[in-house]
């Protein structure tokens, strides 16, 4: 049930999807992998939207050079765990949301326990090696994975529904070399908001998801392209001959 305060707080969105929709958001448990640039915008918008439970996992400390894009953190958070800073801000934004943080490096050995009984995974990682771990877990549990990534003024997003769409490994079969990509803060802002929009739509069961579609955002030219995706029948993670 929604409290009186919640009905008031969310009235401008309840007018779109009703109290029933809002109750669906309240029941949802969303796992966010990463508390950096993407993790900031994703968690902020999911918090204010009234998702019931957010679990964030990250292993990093706030540094000065994060602050051009990681809008959860402030000058006086430098040196703190990103999660500590994230938890504090998110709880102040909406005390109705249960925010849980786990300071851990995600790997194939601990991901199962970390995700626990959460309904979906949002990819806010900064490297493909960990993204593949998220992909495998999403496939195994048959829960959606909301992918996002950024570089400079460019970004991309897609929604992976196991059994239905191409998985992350179908789309990007090879790990690119690790880099420290340039990023303007607005780019993870845009891409994280697209991912959060997908999460909300998925929970509500409305609209068209980014299924088998890669959305490519080019902030420099202000152009958004859509690229068709398909399952790789020989995919090592989801193909018939694969996992």
């Amino acid at each position: 049930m929604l409290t009186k305060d919640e009905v008031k707080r969310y009235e401008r969105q309840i007018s779109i999807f009703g109290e029933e929709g809002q109750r669906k958001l309240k029941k949802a448990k969303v796992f966010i992998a990463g508390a950096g640039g993407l993790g900031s915008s994703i968690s902020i918008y999911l918090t204010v939207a009234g998702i019931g439970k957010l679990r964030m996992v990250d292993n990093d400390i706030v540094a000065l050079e994060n602050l051009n894009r990681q809008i959860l953190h402030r000058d006086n958070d430098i040196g703190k765990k990103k999660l500590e800073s994230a938890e504090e801000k998110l709880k102040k934004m909406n005390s109705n949301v249960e925010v849980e943080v786990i300071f851990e490096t995600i790997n194939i050995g601990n991901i199962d326990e970390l995700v626990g009984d959460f309904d979906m995974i949002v990819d806010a990682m900064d490297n493909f090696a960990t993204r593949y771990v998220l992909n495998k877990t999403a496939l195994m549990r048959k829960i959606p994975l909301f992918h996002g990534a950024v570089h400079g003024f460019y970004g991309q997003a897609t929604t992976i529904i196991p059994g239905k769409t191409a998985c992350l490994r179908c789309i990007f079969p090879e790990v690119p070399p690790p880099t420290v990509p340039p990023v303007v803060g607005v780019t993870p802002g845009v891409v994280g908001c697209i991912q959060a929009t997908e999460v909300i739509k998925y929970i509500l069961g409305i609209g068209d998801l980014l299924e088998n579609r890669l959305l490519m955002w080019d902030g420099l030219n202000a152009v958004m392209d859509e690229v068709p995706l398909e399952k790789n029948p020989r995919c090592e993670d989801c193909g018939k001959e694969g996992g």
Partner: protein
Amino acid sequence: MKVKVKFFATFRELFGGEAKEVELGSGSNIQDLLNLLCDSRQRRQEIFDRSGKLRPYIKILKNGRDIKFLEGVRIELEGEPIQFLGGIHAKLADGDMVAIFPPVGGG
């Protein structure tokens, strides 16, 4: 024949625009197209590794289909494979649209 090439993300800066129309001889394939496009050391380095192979994390679509998915399709002559139709050997035809993507991996 003419082929339209679309570049994405940082490849727009590398190749100087969002799209290009390229004139190719008939019978050309993706490899020929990339050879023509990579007319500077920087472009070659971004697309090919030192041994001249396409960098494996670069995504290329031909008419909306990943060229990797076309791999392994062969024409056989009396049981002997004579030609790969897929991957970088995928043949191009007039009016084809090729899209090239660099990895985007930051968070």
